[in-house]
């Protein structure tokens, strides 16, 4: 959709009414919110003794995973769109012709430098086949820099580890198939 599409509705911020303009009511409202949280239930978690559990794991942006397709193969098609979108240049892909008859291109190698990554989630957004996703794993640590460069096997292992708790977002969508005979 182009920006000048007639179906696009452009909305401006609503102007302040007379009450908003006199400042005091809105300021009081804000202070009340602060006070409510001050005396309300504590949300701080005593990590690492207590483990924080995200209330919405599907929108948390933690460690990446590479999803598998219905046959257990890496779902990624090596289109490089995540690497293109990545503002930190932390994704490195080597593409090759796939060894499977029903697919053309696949990543021979796929590495993410988890130290360089800024966890913005642009890769996930750019992916046309929903192969790369960010999980809710947040406590990532390692003993060396090399250990923090995740390769394809490691990223697939993250998927195997998290697939039950955090199912793939596009689980029911059919995968593109090769046309067997003419159109």
């Amino acid at each position, binding site marked *: 959709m182009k920006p000048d599409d007639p179906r696009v509705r452009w909305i401006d911020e609503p102007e302040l009414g007379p009450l908003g303009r006199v400042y005091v009511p809105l300021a009081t409202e804000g202070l009340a919110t602060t006070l409510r949280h001050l005396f309300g239930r504590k949300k701080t978690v005593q990590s690492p003794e207590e483990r924080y559990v995200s209330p919405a794991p599907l929108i948390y942006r933690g460690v990446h995973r590479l999803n598998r397709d219905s046959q257990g193969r890496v779902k990624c098609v090596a289109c490089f769109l995540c690497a293109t979108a990545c503002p930190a240049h932390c994704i490195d892909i080597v593409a090759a012709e796939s060894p499977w008859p029903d697919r053309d291109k696949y990543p021979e190698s796929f590495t993410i430098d988890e130290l360089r990554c800024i966890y913005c989630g642009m890769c996930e957004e750019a992916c046309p086949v929903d192969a790369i996703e960010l999980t809710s794993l947040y406590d990532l640590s390692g003993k060396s820099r090399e250990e923090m460069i995740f390769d394809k096997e490691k990223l697939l292992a993250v998927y195997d580890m998290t697939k039950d708790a955090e199912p793939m977002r596009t689980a029911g969508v059919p995968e593109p*198939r090769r*046309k*067997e005979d003419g159109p």
Partner: protein
Amino acid sequence: MTRVTIDNRVLELDPEDRLNGIEAAARLGIEIPHYCWHPGLSVVGSCRMCLVEHGTIDRAKGHVVMMPKLVPACQTPATDGSVFITNSPKVVQARAMVEEGLLLRHPVDCPICDKAGECFLQDYHFRHGQDARRADARPFVSRRRELGPDITLFVDRCILCSRCVRFVREVSGSSELMVTGRGSHEEIDVLADFPLNNNLSGNVVDLCPVGALCDKHFLYRQRVWFMRSHEGVCAGCATGCSIWIDENQDRVHRIRPRENPKVNRWWICNDGRWSYPHVHNPSRLATPLRREGGATVAVDWSKLVRELDGRLRHAGPLAAVVSPFLTVEEAYLLCRYIRSIDPEAILALGPVPTVGEDERFPGGFVISAEKCPNRRGVERILAHFAGRVASFDEVVSRAHQGGVGGAWVSGGYRRPWIDASAAEQLARAGLLVVQDLFDSPLAERAGYVLPGAAFVERDGSYVNRDGLLQSARRAIRPPSGARTEGSLLWELSGRSGLYQAEVVLQEVFREIEMKEPRMNTDEHG
């Protein structure tokens, strides 16, 4: 004078131009989208993307008579008094319809398609297509078919513009490709025993407006938006085609033809197209070496220049072998430097690699038998300094007789170029300096081995078989340890600062009358 009206703007043309609607509109900066039309091929008017409104001015009555139907601009000559309308609602709608029709059976597998990013179907869809698909069609994976050793066809991506079929019939003259089937079952194919295998076959990949025809050597190597294109001149043969060198982080991934009406028009040969692997060959020389007795020592470039200069000045009678792979500027600097030390030095042309005969194609394209870019340029420089062009054998035999104190031999050949016996004879020179890309029998016997640059790493000019001088700048930097011949000779000649090929070329022009027409890379393409 022919007057043509396009979108209410008047264009004056020379009647000799013989332009069609697309070309005439392009002169006014108006782009008429087209798939099947190509300036180098015959007109078929089959894609219907260039449909425009057309009419003629009736000067007697003073009004314009429009045709009731849209006409393809590629097939409509821009004659005197003709009127084109390229932006009316009728035309805009026609383009959207064509786009929709093409996309009905297109796999839309852009994420894995090599053409994505430079695909006309994509570009035109964004510019002229509709936002939503009305047909219930889902992306699918295209069928693939091997057409020959270098080219593969993604059958379902094809939009049947037939550019490739016309190319093999009209330009390469080999006619391997054909359209089989009818209507919506039409496909590009080859006969089982006649694969697409001619020396111009790579051009069908550039011609293909979509991602149907792909180059197997480039397939899945890079996404096109990661690469930068540099204007270059092919060094594969004496034809000297204009090329685009596509590079990412100092690695060449693709070479494409660059339109040049004086040399290669829109095409290049397969040999030139896939001539870059040697540039990244890991066995390339990467360290300057000095041999003393049996010991081989790595030398630092910074110390080497003074050392080399000192050794050459005390070497006695000198000889220089100027490779036909050197640019005009480098040949000039080398000859001038050697002659400044020894005014009687022999200046010889390096061996000129020749393979078979010139290969001529029906479309006028010529692949030269002479597989070096600059024999004519180097000969001109040698003749200027020495009055004549000495042959390589002359230097070899002179060295064999012990008449050469110091020899400077420049190489730069893609393939092995010297045999052991010639190398043995040359090595009798007291001091042998070899500048080359790869190890050779000569480099093994040399006193100094200087790693040189490949053609994509050089700044400079070549003179092609027709005497046309073409300049280009480097596309990538030489690998670490190697140094372009030009920059080394620049420093040896005692000049300060960085090597500037343009400055040297101006000097050459002042000293040598080059009758050849000159062509800069910025004059075209």
